[in-house]
């Protein structure tokens, strides 16, 4: 079917149970290459020839990248818009997929670093470069949930419990305190310590 949509030479790669299509010659990129199958994309050697396709192919991936870093919809939406507004004026079409992704990738890093610096005073944003470079990876988003689950499972009981109550069950701090039989003040302290422990565990998992 793909050959009928975009005549050319392809190499097929299966990663993370998803089919990637690497075009071996330059051809316009579609969104996605296999109509009706969001898991099949032309990734390499292809050309973006119009702005709408650049946006359509990448917007959800950039949004998810931003959401994974800021954890809330309003900020993720603003930052995603900013990435496109920042990167598109620097692009000239037609451009190869890898060139376009490099621009968007650089804009994503810069926008995220600026977000943490501007709103929380972080002097030198420590953006996880390996993860930032994966906005166009088709790894299912469920990986983030799996990783969070693994981190929680490695925490001491009370730390895991407070974070589960807050993030998985959506309990208020008072409700979480009630569930754990502690005062709201103690629940806040437990939560703060648990988050820092979770960060440490996450770091160890990456190293």
């Amino acid at each position, binding site marked *: 079917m793909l050959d009928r949509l975009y005549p050319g030479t392809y190499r097929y790669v299966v990663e993370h149970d998803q089919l990637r299509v690497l075009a071996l010659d330059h051809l316009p990129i579609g969104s996605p290459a296999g109509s009706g199958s969001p898991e099949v994309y032309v990734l390499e050697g292809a050309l973006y020839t119009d702005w709408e396709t650049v946006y359509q192919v990448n917007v959800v991936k950039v949004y998810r990248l931003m959401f994974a870093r800021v954890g*809330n*919809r*309003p900020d993720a939406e603003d930052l995603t*818009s900013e990435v496109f507004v920042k990167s598109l004026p620097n692009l000239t079409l037609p451009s190869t997929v890898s060139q376009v992704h490099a621009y968007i990738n650089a804009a994503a890093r810069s926008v995220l670093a600026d977000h943490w610096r501007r*709103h929380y005073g972080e002097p030198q944003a420590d953006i996880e470069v390996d993860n930032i470079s994966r906005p166009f990876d088709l790894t299912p988003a469920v990986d983030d949930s799996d990783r969070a689950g693994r981190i929680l499972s490695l925490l001491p009981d009370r730390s895991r419990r407070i974070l589960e109550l807050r*993030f998985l069950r*959506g309990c208020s701090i008072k409700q979480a305190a009630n569930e754990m039989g502690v005062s709201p003040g103690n629940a806040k302290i437990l939560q*703060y310590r648990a988050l820092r422990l979770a960060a440490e565990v*996450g770091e160890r998992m990456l190293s």
Partner: protein
Amino acid sequence: MRSPVDWIAAFVEDLIRNRRPRRFKASPEEMVALRAAAALSAARPGANRPSRRFIDQVCADVDLTVGAVLAERRRHPVEARERMST
């Protein structure tokens, strides 16, 4: 004045309610907690799906931006290119 523990609790509360978190100057230790909280919030099942309204809005914004850039390039091709490269 709020303590770090209170700021982090307020930040988490905003994340859980999917509100824009309040802003404050964070210490490096607090920043570690903020980022962990953001990552845990993002890992909630199904939380990372963008809304259709947002996708359409960004599409309109991109159209405006691109339109303005192309118009500028047509008017001043050399200057526009130099300005963009700085």
